[in-house]
């Protein structure tokens, strides 16, 4: 008798209530998946009991393109990966190739690289904060954040003529000398910037609704974060003090003093706090750096045609989103034999399923937001 039970409808479209589980499809055309991410959610009512991220809608074969371009020619392509933080991408690539060549950029170039990269980190976090807050429903922070980001983009524009995909650095150093008022511009931006961060905090940090929406959402413990290979603010919010700028200093980071902000709970709220604190630290780094920009050449000794010796190199930097690694294999010709990029967004996105399980549908946007993914980088 008991076995005559009529089976539940299991396909999503049949019913809202009748089935125990339904499958909801978010994206790739959805306002809050930050581009073309598609998430398949298995729902029990409003509760998410499983998820699957479908990626690749923005795949452009960046790694394959690298095999048919010379080392210099490939540099602009990396800007198109994490288009919100193009400068950081360029830094990683240039340093990786420099490592392959066995040279290093002159100190002046490295200091300017640090300034621009930290500004880019601030810009990226600002953009993240604005869109994340917008996803959770706060309209206003977006405009404040974009107002500040605009200042940074203006500095980039003055420096290299481009705002978004800057291609700011060259292999071996810099192409452009710093313009005369760079220090002044950076200072003018950085001096009042911590007040601005306080402003964002006053809108969100203590807000009951914001705390309710983010505290305890998408928890990732330290062990899980390490197991998933998470990096950047995601792992730091879980309480792991891991920052490549400190662990394996590159560029000129060993010259400057800064803190690594960490959280304890590894939830969305902690990631928010960590990123805000990182903006403050980046500001401090910029202020330290502009105090004393060493004089000297901006371009190291590299030839017009780059022919690195056969071999391989892995170089990682701390991009705004986490560990951005370049693994380059050279066969001694002018073109790399293989380039493999470790994008932080992709690896962090792996933890999505772990983070979303047991939460409600509305938390999906909060968690996608808190991971700070850029689909250009996830799909490459």
């Amino acid at each position, binding site marked *: 008798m*008991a076995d005559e*039970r*009529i089976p*539940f*409808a299991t396909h999503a479209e049949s019913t809202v*209530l*009748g089935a125990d589980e339904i499958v909801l499809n978010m994206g790739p055309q959805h306002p809050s998946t930050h581009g073309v991410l598609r998430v398949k959610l298995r729902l029990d009512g409003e509760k998410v009991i499983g998820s699957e991220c479908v990626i690749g809608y923005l795949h452009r074969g960046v790694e394959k393109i690298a095999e048919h371009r010379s080392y210099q020619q490939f540099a602009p392509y990396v800007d198109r990966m994490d288009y919100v933080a193009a400068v950081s991408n360029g830094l990683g690539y240039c340093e990786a190739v420099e490592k392959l060549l066995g040279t290093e950029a002159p100190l002046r170039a490295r200091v300017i690289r640090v300034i621009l990269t930290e500004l880019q980190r601030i810009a990226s976090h600002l953009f993240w904060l604005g869109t994340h807050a917008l996803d959770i429903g706060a309209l206003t922070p977006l405009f404040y954040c974009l107002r500040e980001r605009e200042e940074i983009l203006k500095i980039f524009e003055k420096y290299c003529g481009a705002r978004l995909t800057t291609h700011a650095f060259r292999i071996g150093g810099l192409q452009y000398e710093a313009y005369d008022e760079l220090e002044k511009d950076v200072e003018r931006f950085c001096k009042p910037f911590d007040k601005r961060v306080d402003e964002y905090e006053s809108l969100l940090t203590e807000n009951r609704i914001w705390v309710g929406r983010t505290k305890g959402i998408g928890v990732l413990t330290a062990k899980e974060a390490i197991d998933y290979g998470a990096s950047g603010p995601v792992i730091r919010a879980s309480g792991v003090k891991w920052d490549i700028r400190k662990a394996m200093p590159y560029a000129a980071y060993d010259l400057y003093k800064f803190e690594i902000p960490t959280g304890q709970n590894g939830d969305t709220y902690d990631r928010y706090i960590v990123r805000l604190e990182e903006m403050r630290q980046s500001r401090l780094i910029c202020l330290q750096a502009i105090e004393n920009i060493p004089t000297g050449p901006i371009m190291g000794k590299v030839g017009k045609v780059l022919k690195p010796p056969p071999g391989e190199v892995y170089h990682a930097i701390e991009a705004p989103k986490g560990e951005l690694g370049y693994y380059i294999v050279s066969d001694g010709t002018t073109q790399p034999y293989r380039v493999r990029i470790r994008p932080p967004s992709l690896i962090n996105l792996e933890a999505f399923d772990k983070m979303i399980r047991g939460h409600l549908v509305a938390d999906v946007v909060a968690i996608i937001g808190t991971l700070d993914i850029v689909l250009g980088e996830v799909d490459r």
Partner: protein
Amino acid sequence: MIPTSHYLFLSLALFTIGVIGVVTRRNVIIILMSIELMLNAVNINLVAFSRLVGSAEGHAFAIFIITDAAAEAAVGLGIIISFFRNRETLLGDEMDLMKW
């Protein structure tokens, strides 16, 4: 002036339609809705008589009936939901098991 009997005929018509709905339809939700229709017909009666004799007691009873209708709808729909969840059907004549 509308004679009171016209209200009664209206009420009668609605009531009969409600009865027809209850005894002929298979869908439980429609049966519930037909019951609401019948209760409503009774209300018209009460209010019409209340108007006739000029007292508010009919209104009071109509309010009790509406209360009752609300209670009935809530419980009835609760039963329908749990039934639908178990049997995937809304048809009254498939409700033929006393015990699962």
